[in-house]
């Protein structure tokens, strides 16, 4: 089963990211296969997205309405091994009426792309879970990121 073709610009290209976070791996990140467990990739992407929102002044998240994650996908391209320090690049891929796609790539210490992530969020009222258009103020912030 082959992977779906990647979009342009190539998300494996580090030059397509302006915002970076780096994390030293931990011994406990490994599993019995003696490589970094797949769940750890998800946490590293998550932590990097939160720091991305923090830089945009959007974290802590608003209390009544905001972006709720509705889909997360990770393509694992290469194994990660301990010890190493990884770098995660994060950028906005697409802004819809009420949805947002965030693209991320994780690189090992040799600058090899090891995984790609796409996280889709919808702007919604938290209590009712009803989606609503991304407010203009937030849209401008997202467009400037």
């Amino acid at each position, binding site marked *: 089963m082959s992977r779906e073709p990647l979009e342009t610009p190539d998300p494996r290209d580090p030059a397509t990211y302006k915002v970076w976070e780096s994390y030293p791996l*931990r011994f406990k990140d490994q599993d019995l296969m003696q490589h970094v467990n797949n769940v750890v990739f998800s946490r*590293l992407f998550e932590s990097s997205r939160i720091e991305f929102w923090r830089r945009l002044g959007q974290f802590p998240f608003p209390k009544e309405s905001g972006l709720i994650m509705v889909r997360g996908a990770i393509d694992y391209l290469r194994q990660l091994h301990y010890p190493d320090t990884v770098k995660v690049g994060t950028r906005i891929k697409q802004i819809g009426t009420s949805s947002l796609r965030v693209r991320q790539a994780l690189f090992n210490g040799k600058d090899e792309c090891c995984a790609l992530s796409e996280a889709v969020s919808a702007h919604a009222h938290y209590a009712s879970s009803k989606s609503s258009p991304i407010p203009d103020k937030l849209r401008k912030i997202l467009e400037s990121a």
Partner: protein
Amino acid sequence: MAHEIPAHLGEKASYKFWRENKTRFADMDLTTHVDQSVYVTLFQDARLQFWQWAKHDVMGPVNGLVMVRFSVDIVRAIEHPTTTRIGTRITKMGNSSVAYGQGMWDGAGNFCAVAEAVNVQVDLKTGKAVPWDADLKKRLLTL
């Protein structure tokens, strides 16, 4: 019941080896502090890196280290995000055991926790304790 934390473990100058690690969003618990279980993970990671720095392989293939005692005293909550710094050193070596002292500081320089751990060197096939090589022991005690 108060456990007295050895004061020397809270002295930065007593450590030659330092390991930095960055907190992650998933490290937080519902109090929004870094969860106590993460302290254990960070101290463990620092001990493994200490051995790499000491140029001694503790992962086999013949002998390895097993944990026989570990304690952590939490002095202050760690707020995410931050970069923790852990100092690690050997405090005592027995016939086949090694005891460590560790101190952890947050990114603002606040003293946050102390850990004490004891490992025993064992034959990985038989599980029996293996005495330290005299020269290796001498070298490790200088670190």
